C-alpha cells in the first residue's frame, strides 16, 4: 500500500525510511482507533497546524475553485490547546455523540515521502476512515492528507508538526465530524 520515496527506492536508507514512516502512520492510526487519545496527543507538536478546509463546488476556471480560502470557514482549524479540549471533553464521559463510543478504523494508503531536511519529512497520503456507531450510524470519510513529521523522542519516534486534511465531501453527508483524522 505504499509507493516509495522520492529518492531511489533501491537505496537501503530510503527503504528503511519508508518502513519507519509507514510504521508511524499505522501505529498513530491505531492509537485513534483504540481511543488512546492522550497517547495520540503526545505525538502532536505544541504549535501544530491541524487543518481541514471546507470544500466547495465552483467554476474550475477560477483559482480557489475547490476549497474556501484563508480567513474563510474551515472544518477544522485547530491548535494543540483546542485538540486537547476536544479530548478532554471525550474523557468527561458526558458526550452524547460518543456514548456509547463509535467503532472506527483509520486506513492510510498511497504514502509518498519527501525529505525536507535531515529529520523532517512531508508525507502525502490517502485516507479512509470508517465509523460505525450504535446500530444505525455508519459513515465513511475519505480524501487525501499532507503531514509534516519531525523525528522526536517519543514512543513512536515522530511528532506531527502539521496536518492538512482534504476530505472529499463538500456537503458533509454525516451528522457530525466527531472524529480525529
Amino acid at each position, binding site marked *: 500500500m505504499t509507493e516509495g520515496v522520492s529518492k531511489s527506492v533501491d537505496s537501503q536508507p530510503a527503504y528503511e525510511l519508508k518502513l519507519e514512516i509507514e510504521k508511524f502512520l499505522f501505529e498513530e492510526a491505531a492509537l485513534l482507533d483504540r481511543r488512546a487519545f492522550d497517547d495520540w496527543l503526545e505525538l502532536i507538536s505544541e504549535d501544530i497546524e491541524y487543518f481541514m478546509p471546507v470544500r466547495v463546488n465552483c467554476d474550475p476556471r477560477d483559482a480557489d475553485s475547490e476549497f474556501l480560502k484563508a480567513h474563510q*470557514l474551515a*472544518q477544522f482549524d485547530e491548535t494543540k490547546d483546542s485538540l486537547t479540549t476536544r479530548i478532554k471533553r471525550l474523557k468527561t464521559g458526558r458526550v452524547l455523540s460518543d456514548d456509547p463510543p463509535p467503532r472506527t478504523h483509520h486506513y492510510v494508503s498511497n504514502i509518498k515521502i519527501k525529505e525536507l531536511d535531515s529529520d523532517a519529512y512531508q508525507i502525502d497520503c490517502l485516507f479512509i476512515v470508517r465509523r460505525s456507531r450504535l446500530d444505525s450510524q455508519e459513515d465513511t470519510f475519505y480524501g487525501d492528507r499532507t503531514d509534516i513529521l519531525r523525528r522526536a523522542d517519543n514512543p513512536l519516534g515522530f511528532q506531527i508538526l502539521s496536518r492538512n486534511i482534504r476530505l472529499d465531501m463538500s456537503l458533509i*453527508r454525516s*451528522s457530525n*465530524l466527531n472524529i480525529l483524522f
Partner: protein
Amino acid sequence: MTSDHKDEMLIDLESGSFRAEIFSSREIYERELENVFSKCWLFLGHETQLPNELDFLNTYMAEDPVILVRQEDGTFRAFLNQCRHRGMQVNQYDFGNSPVFACPYHGWTYGADGALINVPMEDSAFPKCFDKGKLGLREVPRLEIYKGLIFGNWDGDAESLTDYLGEAAYYIDALFDRSPAGVEVIGGIHKWTIDSNWKLGAEQFASDMYHVALTHGGVVEAMTPEDVPVDRRGFAANPGKQYSALKGGHGSGFYLSDGDDAIIASILGPRVGEYYNTTLRDQATRRLDRVRGELMGSQHMTVFPNFSFLAGINTVRVWHPRGPDAMEVWSFVVVPKDAPQEVKDDYRRGVERTFSPAGTFEQDDAENWLIIQNTLKGYQASKSMLNLQMGLGMASGGDPTFPGTVGSCYSEEAARGFYAEWQRLINENQ
C-alpha cells in the same frame, strides 16, 4: 391528501401536548411544503455574501434549488434553478460571479435577471409562437431585506417581511444591528446532513435553553474555566427570559445578567470575550439599549419557520427540510464588520469548534435528534403524545422591556407559539 389529520389536533395547546408523528409523517411533510414553505418568508442569504454585482449564490427554499443573484443595479433577485425547457439546473456552482446562466443540456441561456436571452436554433427550429419573453427562469415573486438579511416568499400576496417579523425585530436586532458598521458573513457555509425532521432544530433554537446542561454537559465541563462555579456552567443561576411572537411563530430565549459575559470567552476565546464585553457592548448599548447591549446573553432564536441563530456566539443557520426524516443544515458565522482581523478569526475558529459539523456542541444536539427520528419509525412511537407543558400559563404580554409574550427562559412558550402557527398553516385549505 387523505383526511387522516384534517380535524385532528396534532398540537393541543391548551393541555400542552402534541403528536410525535408531526416529525415523521410523510403526509404532514407534503402539507408543509405547500402550506408552510410556499407561504412563509424563507431566508436566502445575507447581503455581504454577495458583495459584487452579478455575484450569485446557490441556495434552497425548502427543497427547491434557488439562485440568489445581485443585479447590476445592486438589488437582489432570486430564481428557481430550473431551466424552462426540460428542467435541468442552469447553475451547478455553489457561488461565483456571472452575467449569464447557461443550461448545459440544450444551451438555453438566461441573464442575471432571469430573462431567457438565447435559445440555440431559435429561428430555424422553433415555431413563430415560441416566445422567449415568457420563458424566463421562474422568479421568487417576493424578496425583501431586513438589516442585511435577504428573505424570499413564493406567495405573491404575503404580508411584508416587516409585518411578518413584527416585534421579533427587537430580538433579531440584538445580533444583526448592534453597531453602525453592521455585521458581515465570514466567507463560506458549513453544510451537513442530519437524518432528523427540520422542526427539531427550529424548535430547539426557538425555545430550548433547558437542554444545555444535560445535552452539552461534557463540552460545557471541558470548556468552562475551572474557576467558574459549577452552577454557572450552562444551567444557570442566571435568570433569563423566553419570547414567543404575538403572531408568526418566532421565538427566542436569553440569559439576563449584569457583568461580563463569561460564556463568550469560554466558547470563542479571551480576545473575542474582551471585545464582546467592551467594544461591542458599548456600541450595542448606544445603538439599541442597555438591555440588549449589556444584559442579554446566550441568546437563541428562530424566525419561523426555519431560520435560526445564536447571538453572541454568532452562528446563523437554516434547517433545510429533506423529507420528513432528514434535514440539510447550512450554517455560517457573522462578525462585526469593523472588528480587527484577529477578532474575526477567533470568532470563526470558535464557531468552527462548537457549532458546525466538527462542532462539539452541535454534535450533541444532532445525536438527540437522530435517535428521536429513528425511534419514530415505530408505529406506536409515532402515535405518542409528547409533552409541551413547560411554562404553560406562566408567560404573558405587556412586559415594559420585552415585546411579545414573555416568560422564563426555562420554558416552552416559544415552542407552543411555533407549533400554534405551524398548525394554523397546516390546516389551511384542508
